[in-house]
């Protein structure tokens, strides 16, 4: 199937900048190119408040190198796990989704609610996955891309891109762990839609798999499934290692990037875009 147009996606996370050219054709999406440029530790620290790009020059240079050869100057930015507050929200009849999501999240935001950019992803019926991110944080990433000579068209959140794909593909009743470099999003699915959503910082020290199993079990119980062991589908940064630690019997493969680029396998948002 011929590609009739290509969009450039640029994702940033603590460990690397990744870019992918996604061809959009009548037969669906397909990766046309992929690039990953590692970042030195501390150059980028995803956070809902405060500065994310402590070494902006380094990030801009990585962005510039990453998009070289992929073509195009207009990008869709994909912000990493850990910069936004997420919540599964049931909208009352007649409520504006953005206003109601902000109302529900306002108390938990580490910044003034007036500084939030809020949006919501439909999650079946009147349920949405709401997200709020600080305007200054978004601007920081947009300016980094602009400093690398790129024009930012849209800004997505990595966990929402992954969740949208899981809902689109009718995920079975299981717990999905979508991993970023510094944060993870845990979603217990029932009937193809998320029933419970958890978002938290990662602790990548020894025993992460055990801790992940505990939090997944609690999420599954909250979703109405107390059976053990809970089957966890793991996607994203370090997913292969965690699956090994969890054991093949209880851990499944989730969203994965295109196989022709080994570095793309653990980019969950890219797997989400292509699923």
């Amino acid at each position, binding site marked *: 199937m011929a590609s009739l147009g290509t969009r450039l996606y640029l994702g940033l996370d603590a460990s690397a900048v990744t870019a992918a050219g996604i061809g959009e054709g009548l037969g669906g999406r397909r990766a046309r190119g992929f690039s990953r440029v590692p970042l030195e530790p501390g150059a980028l620290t995803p956070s809902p408040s405060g500065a994310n790009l402590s070494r902006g020059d380094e990030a801009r240079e990585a962005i510039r190198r990453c998009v070289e050869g992929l073509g195009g100057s207009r990008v869709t930015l994909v912000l990493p796990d850990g910069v936004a507050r997420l919540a599964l929200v049931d909208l009352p009849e007649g409520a504006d989704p953005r206003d109601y999501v902000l109302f529900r999240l306002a108390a938990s935001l580490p910044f003034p609610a007036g500084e939030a950019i809020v*949006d919501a992803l439909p999650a079946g019926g009147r349920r949405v996955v709401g997200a709020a991110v600080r305007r200054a944080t978004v601007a920081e990433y*947009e300016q980094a891309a602009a400093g690398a000579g790129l024009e930012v068209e849209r800004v997505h959140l990595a966990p929402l891109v992954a969740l949208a794909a899981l809902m689109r593909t009718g995920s079975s009743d299981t717990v999905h762990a979508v991993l970023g470099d510094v944060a993870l999003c845990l979603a217990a699915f029932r009937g193809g839609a998320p029933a419970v959503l958890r978002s938290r910082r990662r602790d990548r020290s020894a025993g992460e798999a055990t801790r992940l199993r505990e939090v997944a079990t609690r999420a599954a119980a909250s979703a109405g499934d107390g059976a053990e062991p809970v089957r966890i589908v793991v996607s994203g940064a370090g997913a292969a290692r965690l699956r090994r630690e969890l054991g093949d019997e209880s851990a499944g493969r989730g969203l994965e990037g295109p196989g022709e680029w080994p570095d793309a396998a653990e980019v969950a948002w890219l797997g989400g875009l292509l699923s």
Partner: protein
Amino acid sequence: MSRQPDFSTSPRPARHPAWGKLAVGAGLVALVLAAGESWRAGQEAGQARARLSGVRREVETASLRLKALDARARGATSALPAAEAPPARIVANLASILPGDTRLERLSIDYARGGALEMQVVARDAASWDRLLDGLSRAPWLREVQSGPEAREAEVRSVVRARWAGGAP
């Protein structure tokens, strides 16, 4: 609430993919072509209706002419030019087949009705009457010979009708 939420600080209208634009463009082109075809079909239909109307008028005209020609043809077949059957010739022909004991008292020739003959004849007796009728029926220059009611007193009187067929006795 969008399908994939946008958290840009300054959101802009979604850029549609190239294939989407192409599809919309192709749809518009198809629409324009269809409209053009429809207009052209309408024009052709109008021209066809006009041609049909003209043909119908021609048919009506031809039909009227045919009727007129038919009437003239019928008139032509029923009429007999006097030049083709002069009374003297008819009388001479009749005289040639009249038996001796019969006489022709009156003869009328209607040329407008194709040479219809009406003959008032008198025969001395039935036998001569029969010979007369036999002679008239056999005459090649007569057809449709019909005898009228016979008055049989001492002699037979009747009117015989026939049509002149032409030819020599």
